[in-house]
């Protein structure tokens, strides 16, 4: 969804964005980091010759070196390889979470903001309830109810973020609905649905894109936390959160924590930077 609305932006604005505003170096760097992460998740085999599952017992717990960039773990597996192979699951699950949150939250916000009246009151209470339960606790409860695995953790993370999207979408819709161009469209003979779909939705969702990008970063963190607590797929899966969780039992060999943590932080930081940039350029 993120990608779709991005490419839907007209060619003119895309070009003017690049030429007139110029991409700041930090943003360019952030895009580069994200490109690597995407490449890792699409074709992990291209980036490493080691196996993520089978280790060489003789080479266990080696420190980082030219042969093993991130060192090796307690079973002698190359940690860099484990991180690369864990990327797909970490990234996809965050994507699932964002799509669930944006679609469900967006719909709730759209209906509440546009229809108003009792629909708004009912939906606003629902959102209040979702907000009142601490985000992470809510994710934990949902994943407990539907079972422990990475996809379910993603769904739980998505559910816990619905309220954020609903709230932003609702306030954007209300703002847009009161915009003068909406009244003008009404005078031009536009029906309610025409105005909702053609005027209100496109304008209101402009601010949802940066939010979705931001939430993507947050979802990586939440899913990593769930994996850390053992609510995701069990080993030999190598989600980033799980890798850190395993590493915590071997703090004498700190790269087992620091390396996957570094990758996680770099990814989330890049995503946040891009989100901030999108918000500013809009």
């Amino acid at each position: 969804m993120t990608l779709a609305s991005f490419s839907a932006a007209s060619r003119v604005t895309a070009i003017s964005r690049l030429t007139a505003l110029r991409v700041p170096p930090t943003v360019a760097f952030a895009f580069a980091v994200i490109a690597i992460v995407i490449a890792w998740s699409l074709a992990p085999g291209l980036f490493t010759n080691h196996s993520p599952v089978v280790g060489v017992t003789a080479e266990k717990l080696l420190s980082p070196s030219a042969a093993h960039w991130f060192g090796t773990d307690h079973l002698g597996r190359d940690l860099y390889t484990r991180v690369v192979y864990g990327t797909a699951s970490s990234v996809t699950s965050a994507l699932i979470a964002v799509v669930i949150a944006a679609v469900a939250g967006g719909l709730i916000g759209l209906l509440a903001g546009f229809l108003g009246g009792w629909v708004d009151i009912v939906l606003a209470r629902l959102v209040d309830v979702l907000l009142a339960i601490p985000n992470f606790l809510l994710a934990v409860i949902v994943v407990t109810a539907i079972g422990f695995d990475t996809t379910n953790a993603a769904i739980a993370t998505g559910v816990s973020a619905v309220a954020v999207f609903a709230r932003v979408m609702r306030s954007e819709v209300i703002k847009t609905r009161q915009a003068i161009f909406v009244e003008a469209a009404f005078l031009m003979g536009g029906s309610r649905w025409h105005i909702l779909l053609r005027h209100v939705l496109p304008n209101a969702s402009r601010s949802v894109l940066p939010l979705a990008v931001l939430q993507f970063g947050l979802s990586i963190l939440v899913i990593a936390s769930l994996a850390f607590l053992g609510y995701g797929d069990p080993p030999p899966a190598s989600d980033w959160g799980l890798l850190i969780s395993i590493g915590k039992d071997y703090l004498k060999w700190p790269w087992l924590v620091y390396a996957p943590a570094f990758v996680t932080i770099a990814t989330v930081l890049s995503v946040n930077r891009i989100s901030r940039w999108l918000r500013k350029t809009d």
Partner: protein
Amino acid sequence: MAAQDRLTANTLTRAEPNAPVPLRPIPLLRVDGLSVSYGSHEVVTNVGFELGRGESLALIGESGSGKSTIARAVLRLLPSNGRATGRVVFDGQEVLGISERGFRPLRGRAIGFVPQDPANSLNPVRTIGAQAQEAAALLDEPDKRIRKQLVLETFAEVGLDNPRRVYDSYPHQLSGGMLQRVLIGLAILPRPALLVADEPTSALDVTIQKRILDLLTRLQHDLKISLLLITHDLAIAAERANALVVLKDGVIQEAGRTASVFSSPASAYARKLRADVPALNPDRYAALRDIGSRFLKTAAGTAPKIAVSAVTKTFNVDGKSLVAVDDLSFTVPAGTTHALVGESGSGKTTAVRLLLGLEQPDSGTISVAGEQIAGRSPGELRSAWRHLQLVYQNPFTSLDPTWTIERLVREPLDRFGIGTPKERDERVRKALADVGLGEHLLSRKPAALSGGQRQRVAIARSLVLKPDVIVLDEPTSALDVSVQAGIVEVLLSLQANLGLTYVFVSHDLALVRQLAHTVSVMHRGCIVEHGEVAEIFDNPQQPYTKALLASIPSGVADAAQAPHARPLLMAAAE
């Protein structure tokens, strides 16, 4: 063109080349070769002028002319990405290059600042008194009670009725006019030598505008303060300043004594600016307007295009009922323009919304082109809107920013299902051509257009339905005068060619005089006076109408307030 104009200004400087130095008074403020840029974008280029003690000088220009930037550069209040080069000499001291610490003692104490928008110029969460104490701290007066007394005296001096109440108020509890008086009071309290006033009245109603300007002029003379006035309004500038500097795109177009620049402008730009000010050219569009006037004469006996009768509308605000429109009645013959004139709170906006059926009146009837408007649901009004369209005040908010111009203008045709797709294309192109826009704009989005172009798009969008009646809600008040002139011309020629009927809502009496046939003057929800434009303007009966007319800046300084005409030295940058 610019070079030639600078030559004019130069000749002025060199007029007395051999004058001995002591005879030439040292100006209070001298700006020399000032350029200001934001990032790599230069907004002010090589500007220079002089302002003598007790004199007043106006910087005139439209939006983007750099006039406010110059004021801020003099005050050293440019935003952090702004960079100024050149020389600003205040009272014999170069101040552009000195440190912030070195300049600060001048701020407030020697150079006072009156900002543009009084509503946002005081801290909303602190009382007026607390902020007044900051200005009072600049006086060498240790006793806080005496300082408060001085503040209260100054408030009385600037015409605030109840200084004590004002002192204890928060900004949101006062009106715009009162806030501007407060700000002027705070600026003059430390008795500065120079007062910089950045569009001090553009956010205020016309009658209040005049009172604030009178106040500034009086203070300037009583306290011997030099005034640097920034304004977009040539008539105001000519009325209030000894000297004028006309700017365009950050470059001086013309500079000199008010009398010469105003009455016989040398540069093409200043001439055009003067021609575009409605107050100075009441009969500019007489030929076009007369076509409608003929309809007015033949209208007797025929049914009017618009008939509003005894309409009243009350709103409930905070549990109190507020009469927005009280017993409103007027008729508009086909092919003519009726103006609704009033200040903010006069009920003119409510009148527009009632006329369109966007609000329902409590009582009374409204009919437009034979269709009843009052009492019908939005669904039923759809047919009326085919003949009745609205052009909004602000073209920056009335066009959906995500749509292209073509889609925007085409929208009413699509919604009402008029013609085949091919016919719609043609009508869109025709409507754009009628308002003077080229086809190359079709695929652009509103953000890529200027304000004037956007308002033309909005007019084209109303026009494309071929309506009988167009309601124009202050269609030019968000635009520069030169852009306004273009829009007015388009509106009048459309009326002449298509026989359109207009309801023109405005606060600008001078503009109304240029284009309307009949007028209703509104005050607090009621029509206080109505009739043909010439009649009302030449022979107003009601005191309110007289006050409104008196507040139109004429470009001629009031004899009573006329500054003692002294020779003034002008210099342009070189």
